[in-house]
């Protein structure tokens, strides 16, 4: 009898606890939507068509277009470098490295993944930014520095995901290719990568998701100017930095406040789309 009661309660506990993730996600989406709604209602298309962000001036303008473009440009630029570099390193780890090398490199990459983003931002500001002055580049917080920070941050992600995908390919595929006389690099490139393509695409998507959602690095080194950059030394202000820096100063319930939630909604939407895409690829890959 007692056993049955225990069964009932413990199973109930499991169900309730497990539901929290759904509840949490639901409430998160709900609250972000709820708090963005006044901005959507009052501003309509403006955030997406206007490049001028003057939320506190006499004639306020809530154009987020410049910041959205900043976020996208930063992500695109950083990803363009990180993904190939990550791929090359995973390629090396999978194809050529001996077990000791692999272990060493993977450990150091994993340690990097644990470094808090605020420390990376601090490092760039304190050690790398002054180097720019020595090179007579007077813009000490800019697109390029932010991009470097983002690359440092996302590299471990890319490498570990891609290595995992490559490693999980059936060894027999590689062995047969090698047995046929194909050299190692071609094997990995043409055979393994193709077989692991969904995993690789998955890594790309997750890397992009990580970069676009990063806040602290860009808050510290991107420059804080909501403009579309014309050079990599121009300052920029991606959506994440705008939210973090301005949220502390808005009056709760003001249009500015709701507009920042709208920025959060845009980020949320992008990340959910990427997550769904990633899930599709993972399912195909894990099969």
């Amino acid at each position: 009898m007692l056993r049955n009661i225990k069964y009932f309660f413990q199973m109930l506990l499991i169900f309730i606890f497990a539901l929290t993730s759904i509840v949490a996600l639901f409430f998160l989406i709900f609250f972000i939507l709820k708090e963005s709604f006044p901005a959507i209602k009052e501003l309509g298309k403006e955030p997406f068509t206007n490049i001028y962000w003057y939320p506190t001036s006499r004639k306020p303008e809530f154009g987020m277009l410049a910041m959205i473009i900043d976020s996208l440009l930063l992500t695109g630029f950083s990803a363009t470098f990180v993904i190939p570099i990550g791929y090359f390193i995973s390629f090396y780890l999978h194809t050529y490295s001996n077990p000791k090398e692999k272990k060493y490199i993977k450990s150091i990459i994993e340690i990097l993944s644990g470094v808090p983003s605020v420390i990376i931002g601090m490092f760039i500001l304190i050690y790398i930014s002054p180097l720019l002055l020595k090179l007579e580049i007077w813009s000490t917080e800019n697109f390029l520095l932010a991009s470097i920070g983002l690359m440092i941050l996302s590299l471990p992600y890319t490498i570990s995901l891609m290595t995992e995908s490559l490693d999980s390919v059936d060894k027999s595929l590689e062995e047969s290719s090698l047995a046929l006389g194909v050299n190692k690099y071609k094997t990995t490139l043409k055979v393994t990568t193709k077989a692991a393509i969904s995993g690789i695409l998955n890594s790309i998507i997750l890397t992009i998701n990580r970069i676009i959602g990063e806040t602290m690095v860009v808050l510290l080194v991107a420059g804080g100017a909501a403009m579309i950059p014309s050079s990599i030394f121009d300052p920029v202000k991606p959506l994440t930095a705008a939210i973090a820096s301005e949220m502390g100063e808005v009056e709760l319930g003001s249009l500015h406040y709701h507009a920042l939630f709208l920025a959060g909604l845009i980020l949320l939407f992008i990340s959910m789309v990427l997550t769904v895409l990633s899930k599709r690829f993972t399912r195909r890959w894990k099969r």
Partner: protein
Amino acid sequence: MKKVLLLLIVFITSFGISSTLVIKGSNTVFPIAQLWIEEFKKIHPDVEVTLEGAGSSTGIAALFNGTTDIANASRWLKNEEIQKMHEVGKYFIPIVIGYDGIAIIVNKNLNIEQISIETLSKIYTGKIRYWNQVDPNLPKKQILVYSRNTASGTYETFEKKVLNEENMAPWVRMVESTQFEIQTIEQNPYAIAYVGVGYVTEKVKVLKIDGILPTKENILTGKYPISRPLFMFIDATNGYPESGLIKNYITFGLSKRGQELVEKAGYVAAYGF
């Protein structure tokens, strides 16, 4: 509305339980408040104080939300804030704690000594982008324009008195704090920024505005065109605090020692000469 009420109730009660003094607001007043708090704690060792300096607007907003006891401000209330006071039935009172001038600073190696208000305005609104447009003797280098972010009272004052409420150019870099601007100017020969005079160090050059330097005298007499009083705002809706933490803090701030500390922070004392 109901949410605000609930929040207020929770906060007023939680404040009743603890004896913490919460101070939020202006980044310009922050150094004064830090010095005051350090000495205040020596006099009242059982009191706890928390201090934030994200900007004047955050302090006033917090006063409305009931999340702060004292709002430091380097600007007066905006019209919308006064209107909101009427709407929600609150009554904030200002206490002048000192005077400040907004100094325009550039790197010591930049060959310029003074600037006019119109030129300054043109730089910040984006009509002028290169140093040689300011003075043909200067090199043709892009001006790195720095500003505080919009929460800052310094920003508001600058916007009002220099820009005449025109918008700043999108490439003006908004940073979180004055210290950061000072550091940048110290190292970057082509940057310009505006800061509370209390933050100025010997490592930066202060420009004369239309021939006038922001000295204590020029600020007090109003000769320097960008000067302003520094305030503490408190919520006096339920009456003026005649006793308690807030009153003790105010009394200390306006005392001889408190005003000495205002000067130590680099500003101009309001009382006690």
